[in-house]
């Protein structure tokens, strides 16, 4: 990707965002169930209903509604949540850090697990450990994150209750935080007992989210390592007497990592999407859990805000991954 390609990549963002906005608007206008009907007490007069309709701009033609809505959304005004009677943007910003921390922990676990299994598999090519890892990957790929979550609850919450299976932190700790990033904050301030409690709550949902990504990473990274090991530079290092392990780590790994990062972008969006159900299953107070609540309550403004938040996260992530690949790959940089 040269300079022109990077610029073109950036230029793709606005149309994608606009398309996302159109889809979100259209999709939620077809949700049955009148949002106004849910807001008013029974027995309200038609005049009250009309007044509320006008207040939310629901009396305008659909195209004008879209323009009004889009203008507000562009400055972060998603309206007021119907079920929680609070500004949607405030609700989302309060919950977002919890999800981001969960995603961060899950990603770290997935990368560590995926890289470890790929290296072991690549080192023991065509031997028992590689077959074991291939089998493990096949099973990991067959079990989606939310089923892992349920299995973990069954295993570590019920049959052998060693870990907490709901919430983000034990409320009995009475911990106070200055930011929404509880885990990062407690680690930075050296509050280890709180950090430990947060991690114990995060570990099961995070591993559930991490396992499918770890499986994909293992598969792609192992294949890339195998290819990199056959390249001239790796063969030369080998012929100069370096051990296979060293060549794998020092020569093949950095090159294979580039190929893997490129793919990891889309896969990471799947992980983030997985938080919707996994947070729900573990009663974890993030935006995914909030989205299911909003859906159940038919809270239109909140759903719109949440879907858009996820979309913005995804678009930013894909952009970041594309730029990171460019930056990492020396061929692209100098070419």
């Amino acid at each position: 990707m040269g300079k022109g390609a990077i610029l073109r990549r950036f230029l793709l963002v606005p149309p994608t965002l606009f398309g996302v906005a159109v889809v979100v608007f259209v999709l939620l206008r077809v949700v049955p169930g009148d949002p106004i009907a849910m807001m008013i007490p029974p027995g309200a007069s038609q005049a009250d209903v009309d007044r509320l309709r006008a207040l939310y701009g629901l009396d305008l033609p659909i195209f004008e509604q879209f323009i009004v809505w889009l203008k507000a959304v562009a400055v972060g005004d998603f309206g007021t949540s119907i079920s929680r009677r609070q500004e949607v943007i405030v609700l989302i910003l309060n919950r977002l850090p919890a999800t981001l921390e969960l995603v961060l922990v899950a990603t770290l676990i997935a990368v560590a697990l995926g890289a470890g299994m790929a290296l072991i598999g690549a080192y023991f090519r065509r031997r028992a450990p590689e077959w074991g890892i291939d089998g493990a990957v096949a099973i990991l790929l067959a079990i989606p994150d939310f089923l892992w979550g349920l299995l973990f609850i069954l295993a570590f919450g019920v049959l052998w209750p060693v870990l907490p299976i709901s919430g983000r932190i034990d409320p009995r700790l009475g911990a106070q935080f200055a930011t929404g990033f509880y885990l990062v904050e407690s680690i930075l301030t050296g509050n280890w007992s709180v950090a430990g409690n947060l991690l114990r709550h995060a570990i099961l949902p995070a591993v559930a989210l991490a396992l499918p990504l770890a499986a994909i990473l293992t598969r792609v990274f192992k294949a890339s390592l195998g290819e990199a090991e056959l390249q001239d530079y790796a063969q030369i290092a080998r012929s100069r007497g370096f051990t296979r392990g060293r060549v794998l780590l020092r020569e093949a790994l950095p090159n294979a990592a580039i190929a893997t990062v490129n793919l990891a972008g889309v896969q990471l969006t799947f992980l983030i999407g997985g938080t919707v159900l996994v947070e729900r299953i573990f009663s974890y107070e993030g935006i995914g859990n909030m989205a299911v609540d909003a859906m159940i309550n038919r809270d239109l403004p909140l759903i719109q805000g949440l879907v858009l938040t996820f979309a913005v996260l995804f678009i930013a992530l894909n952009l970041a991954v594309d730029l990171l690949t460019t930056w990492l790959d020396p061929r692209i940089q100098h070419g």
Partner: protein
Amino acid sequence: MAEAANVSEGSGAATAAAADDTRRRAIRLDPRAVAGGTIVVILFLTALLAPLVAPHNPLAQDLLLTQLPPAWAPGGDPAFLFGTDSLGRDILSRLIHGARIAVIVALVAATLACLIGSLLGLAAGYFRGWVDQAVSRLIDVWMSFPPVLLSIVLAAAVGAGLYSVILAIVVVDWTRFARVVRSETLLQGQLDYVAAARTIGMKPLATLLKEVLPNILPLLATLLTVEMGIAVIVEAILSFVGLSVSTDTPTWGGMIAEGRQLIYQTPWLLALPIACIVATVLGFNLLGDGLRASLDPVQRR
């Protein structure tokens, strides 16, 4: 292989026959395809013959025999191999009947998503230009939504039920096919056999359907198989959040939701449908992997 046969019809016949022979042998020998195929056949037979195989009526309640553990556990009843749920319904029979919804969703939703996605992908990859731009931007927009959230919103918008589950899967997952088919068609479009077909006067559409499409079919078969597994998972997700078929019809996802609520009383009610879903998805995935290894000439070497 097929390219060679297309370009030089005369001498290619023998090679093509030989290739067909190795292909058939490869399919027979790939252990993943055999294992996956076996699981899938068992699943389809179970769904087809559910009323005959199920030992009990899946809806028959027996309030005197509620929450029985599996037959091998203490207190189990051999008449109820996997125990009963909180309404005294036979879990094994419910699992067997649950396979029906899974199979219907897998077949219908995956096939429709495959048709729509592949058509758009073929058009984008072959005609390029504005068609490709339009399809690619549409894919970009679609890929910006979490699939699970999008299917939940869609299913909720249309209203719970089998049709809305199928619709949600098709509308969300066509991109899986469109992306892969588009890039594969782009690749194929640059190969000599396409130019050759155009040179001898074949129309673009005919070239696309008669020359390019057959070369993409092995890839499509793999994608379709894997998508069937995904469809089963999405159906379970939507059942889990109460957006699939009515609670009277047994589904694996619905049973998981019941099991989650009674996790301390009847943990097996949660574990068994999960095992069914995992086995099903594993079967489709293995079959897909095996098909790819058998049909793809590059991987076969």
